[in-house]
């Protein structure tokens, strides 16, 4: 079956510390993968997307980076966290065909930078 895993669920990190959030999918190959952030107040903002191994596109310039070392693995990183990096981070995977598709989201990581 097709599933998406995201961890950790909750994270509290001090300002200036590094970050690594991992997302993996199962039951598919060569998926389109996405990282979104949801700040308090509901809106979801696309941060990065990837259409294949080593292919990363950034939507918003910021303190974060993403990598895709394997086909079904997508990692969100930071070398030094800022207070403004706090938020709810969601990994997503596009499913279906090019003309009839949907999205499956991971359960999210709630990051608090203190």
């Amino acid at each position, binding site marked *: 079956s097709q599933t998406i895993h995201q961890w950790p669920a909750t994270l509290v990190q001090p300002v200036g510390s590094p970050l690594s959030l991992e997302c993996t999918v199962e039951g598919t190959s060569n998926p*389109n993968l*996405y990282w979104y952030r*949801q700040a308090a*107040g*509901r*809106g*979801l*903002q*696309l941060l990065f*997307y990837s*259409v294949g191994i080593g292919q990363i*596109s950034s*939507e918003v310039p910021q303190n974060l980076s993403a990598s895709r070392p394997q086909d079904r693995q997508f990692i969100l990183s930071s070398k030094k966290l800022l207070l403004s990096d706090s938020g*709810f981070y*969601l990994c*997503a995977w*596009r499913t*279906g065909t090019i003309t*009839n*598709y*949907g*999205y*499956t*989201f991971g*359960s*999210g990581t*709630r990051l608090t930078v203190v």
Partner: protein
Amino acid sequence: GIQVEQSPPDLILQEGANSTLRCNFSDSVNNLQWFHQNPWGQLINLFYIPSGTKQNGRLSATTVATERYSLLYISSSQTTDSGVYFCAVPKDGGSQGNLIFGKGTKLSVKP
């Protein structure tokens, strides 16, 4: 870029009531998605609906692409329908699947 606006921003219903949520978008789209985010943060894809009407149980959605809006209907609401409902459309033609989300409608269903 394309703008997505949702209304109302907040909605409180008594269990059993019906409701209509609206999504307006500023440019032509070839795809529109509706999502539900439960109080624990999990996002569930409800509908892929670029045009026409679809139904899934007590939920249905209609998109009128020529007039640039979509509606989500919830009938006989239940407390489990509470959460935030988002609509989303592709950015820049959407070949990569990147979505632009509206700010959502927060629905609270009271028992």
